[in-house]
């Protein structure tokens, strides 16, 4: 697959990215654990070396919204810049994640020293447009397109060496909530994707044919 997601690493270049990682402290996060939680103080950010994460927003009445998916080469947690600002979202590991934790002031010094402030601004534009609500929900795509695009996104961002990278790590309920669709609609679309061979049959949602999935996604 020639697909390579465009993260901060791609904008910075491999060499710059390697220099950035040297500024951080090595951390590993088990699947299902939080890298940061909404409401906590900020002051540091996390550069993802491997693994996917879910960025989640929690509403005051306890609802959870999938804001975005990030993976290796991305930076998360840069919005809460100081210890006095609070995390506006939670970040949870989908896979086991290897990451570098970098203090925000060191990150900004790095950007200035490497003349990367402009590239970072480009990255923020990219991030703000590549959110689940704007890409999948606000877009007026039909349900088939939305479901296929989210599944494709999850597979594209999966670690290439992960044995079960084609397994969709979200439940049908989570997919439905993320897309703003009824659960029954998501179930219908998954049945359709199974019937064309894009997904394999069986209880779990597993992508069987990425090219077919792309066709459904219009990608």
């Amino acid at each position, binding site marked *: 697959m020639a697909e390579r*997601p465009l993260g901060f690493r791609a904008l910075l270049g491999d060499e710059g990215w390697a220099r950035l990682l040297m500024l951080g402290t090595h951390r590993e996060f088990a699947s299902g654990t939080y890298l940061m939680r909404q409401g906590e103080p900020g002051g540091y950010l996390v550069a993802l070396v491997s693994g996917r994460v879910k960025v989640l927003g929690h509403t005051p009445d306890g609802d959870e919204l999938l804001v975005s998916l990030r993976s290796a080469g991305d930076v998360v947690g840069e919005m809460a810049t100081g210890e006095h600002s609070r995390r506006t979202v939670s970040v949870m590991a989908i896979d086991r994640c290897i990451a570098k934790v970098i203090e925000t002031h060191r990150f900004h010094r790095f950007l200035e020293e490497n003349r990367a402030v402009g590239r970072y601004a*480009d990255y923020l534009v990219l991030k703000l*447009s590549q959110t689940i609500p704007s890409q999948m929900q606000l877009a007026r795509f039909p349900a088939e397109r939305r479901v296929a695009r989210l599944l494709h996104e999850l597979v594209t961002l999966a670690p290439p060496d992960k044995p079960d990278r084609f397994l969709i790590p979200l439940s049908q309920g989570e997919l439905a909530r993320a897309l703003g669709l009824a659960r029954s609609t998501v179930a219908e679309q998954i049945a359709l994707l199974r019937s064309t061979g894009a997904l394999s049959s069986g209880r779990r949602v597993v992508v069987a044919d990425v090219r077919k999935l792309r066709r459904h996604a*219009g*990608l």
Partner: protein
Amino acid sequence: MDRHPQVLPPYRSLFVVDVKDFNGREGSRHAELTKDIPQILRLAFERAGLAQAWQQQRFHRHTGDGYFAGFDSAMLPLLLNPLLSALQDELLHRNARGLAAGHGQPLRMRAAITVGPVTEFAKRPTGDRSGDAQIETHRLVDADPVRNLLTRSGDTTCLAAIVSERAYHDAVASGYSAERPDLYVPVEVEAKSYRSRAFLRVPSPSGELLAKGFVAAEPAGSAPARAPDERRGATPTTSTVLDKAYARR
């Protein structure tokens, strides 16, 4: 020469896109990309909630490195808003996921939008047509001011558009596109025998466009597009336009 008055042919909204650096891409990718362009446009129309409009093109033609289409004139405001932003979003999504044909080289486009009378010689949707509006559309999409928008911005700016003066007055200044008129920056266009005022529109500006505005004070060329950090301050008029553009996002 005898000249007789004639009735005007029907007014159409004309839309053309051109891929930046099409010829700079690997030749083996050209066919694939040519095939992808209408598909990407169709998805942008779908994303904008205009799937039906895409199906109701009056005529269309592949232009080699782009695509040319005519729509009912009533569609004009919708081609500006929400279509342009939807096309930017669709291109950015594909580029961000490395899906553009051309392996990693992001796909970026120029678009031109005009309105005017178009004579249709053949009833087939791909038949020949003629008219000043059509010539104007092609002149505009190739004009330097819109080309410069892409060379002076970063890869997150996937679309730069230029709109004819008539299209601007009929759809934007009139309020039909429901956009602030100051999102559009006026510019003088000169190409071959064509000379006119037109309007620039960039749904997602970046790089030098943010630092210095849509219209470069000095000829663009030697300076690389990136590194707005090293640039001096913006001109007041365009930065105001952009501040407003961002306030709306």
